[in-house]
């Protein structure tokens, strides 16, 4: 995944707000990047641009050697369906569907038949420890459980890249740790993770940290050595 001098500016009440300013970046497959920075520094914008959801004002985004924004919107949707998964701070589960059905959505979009959808979705929910909550709707789940459903959903189509915007932002430290454990696990399967976070402890779980300031990538630092990370509590899996 590669950003080539990407800028993104919004027009807001006649004024131009620069959210990303000439950002260049290379993220190798299997990386686990934490993106930190003050509020309004362009972190969410960066993720959306990476995920093919938001065309940059200038610059190019390459994914597996293809220039993402030279594709049509529906082709980008196709790329997302196959390769990219989003995790949101607010989980964004579909409120009227059960946990199982929420996880089935990406599978339905990919054209998987129903029995196979159910089987895979059940397995994923069991993996995140929610095998006994398949028929619960989001309001009937704790917020930690909701984020785990969202993680199961993001895994449904076996994405190469996972883009997580403050996945632990709404969670208490305990449940936040569970989610981070899951993300680490997912990363260990060889998937690339880009995670926006405000929490230094969460950032410390990543392989490296990217600092954004006023839309510019100001510094990149390697995270805590791998050995230390491995020791963190892993009650979930």
């Amino acid at each position, binding site marked *: 995944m590669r950003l080539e001098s990407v800028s993104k500016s919004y027009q807001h009440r006649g004024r131009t707000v620069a959210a990303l300013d000439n950002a260049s970046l290379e993220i190798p497959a299997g990386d686990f990047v934490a993106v930190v920075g003050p509020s309004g520094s362009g972190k969410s914008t960066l993720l959306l641009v990476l995920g093919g959801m938001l065309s940059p004002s200038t610059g190019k985004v390459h994914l597996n050697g293809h220039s993402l924004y030279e594709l049509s919107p529906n082709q980008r*949707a196709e790329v*997302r369906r196959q390769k990219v998964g989003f995790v*949101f701070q607010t989980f964004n589960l579909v409120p*009227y569907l059960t946990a199982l059905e929420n996880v089935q959505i990406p599978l339905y*979009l990919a054209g998987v038949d129903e029995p196979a959808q159910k089987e895979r979705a059940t397995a994923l929910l069991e993996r995140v420890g929610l095998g006994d909550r398949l028929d619960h709707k989001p309001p009937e789940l704790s917020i930690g459980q909701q984020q785990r459903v969202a993680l199961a959903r993001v895994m449904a189509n076996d994405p190469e890249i996972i883009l997580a915007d403050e996945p632990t932002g709404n969670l208490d430290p305990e449940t936040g740790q569970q989610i981070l454990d899951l993300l680490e696990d997912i990363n260990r399967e060889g998937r690339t993770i880009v995670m926006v976070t405000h929490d230094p402890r969460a950032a410390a779980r990543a392989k490296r940290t990217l600092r954004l300031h006023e839309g510019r990538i100001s510094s990149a630092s390697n995270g805590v050595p791998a050995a230390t990370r491995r020791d963190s509590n892993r009650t979930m899996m």
Partner: protein
Amino acid sequence: MHLRKLVWREMFERKNQLATSFLAILLGIAVVVSIKNITFFSEKAVAAQLDALGANVLILPKSVSLQDYYSADMQNDEFPEEYVQRLALSDIQGLDNLSPKLSLPVKLKDRSFTLTGILPKSEFQAKAMWSGAGIFARPAEGCGTVADVPGALRPTAKETLVRQRVIEDLSDTEALIGADVATLLGTKEGDSLDVLGRTFTVTAVLPQTGTVDDSRIFAHLHAVQDMAGKGPVINAIEIVGCCKEISGGLVQKINKLLPDAKVVTVTQVVDTQVKTNGMMARLSLIFLGIIVLVGGASIANYMYANVYERRREIGTLMALGAGSGVILKMFLLKALLLGLAGGVCGYILGTVLAVALGPRLAGIPVLPMPVLVVWAIGISVVIALVASYFPARRAARLDPCATLQEV
């Protein structure tokens, strides 16, 4: 998970919000279906009446205003029976069967019936004066009336009275009774029946006609005149005329001959009903316009609100890889289901209304019309789809980022 399930779950989980637009379309369709249904049967009734009575002419006392052809003789005004002779003696062409009537209300076993005196055809023929005048000598062929075909079976009294409204023979002590009279009194053919102190033999029970004739007891005119004690008077004369003659000024000729009587044709009688039907047809068009506007606006409004409310969900689906086509289909399928449900339920409600109210409003029996379900669903689905198209397109064109960024 598939699209239908997704749409269905959303509709079902939030059915309260759906209720208003569903009701709007349901009620609209129901009203139009019931109007269509009643109008159809009303038109059929008119057609049947025209068909059965075709060229018939009624002669009534001047003061009478006519509501229903079948009960035209049930009023208190009379004119002399002598009018019949005047008609018979005239040289007016196209009078084939003269049927004078005198009706009396009677109570039997605490139920109200009508005793109707009629004059059998043989009676005319027996009177030398009348037959000498030759009206029955005139050939009646081509008039669609009672031309006796040699060799063919003579129609029975029942058939001629019900279908052609004349009878060949009837003695002073014989009576024919309508189907309702027979069931309510438990009387069969061959039984005797006491009416106002006289005893009649029931020679026939007439088949059900669905008209007031069902609660009539037909007896000889002169017997009824005796019982009424008003002398040789009658309430009405029914004439089977020829269509050709009627259009050729038969009514005017009778008017001239009997200036104190009122001459009415069936066409005039059913005219009010024809007008009502026309009005109903226009009304159903107006209602159709109203449901298209109100139902459509209500659905469009609901759909816009629904799209707005679900923008985060739409953004999420797009982030999960849904293209704009899926989103468009999702809302159009919802509109389709709404239209289907509104059409089917509207048809059912409208049919129930028509069957229940038809007899009261239009005085005719109304049966369900299955073809209207196709019509109802068609209209309802088209309205729902058209009204939802722009909201659905807006949903499909939503900027997913904008919806995901707001918290």
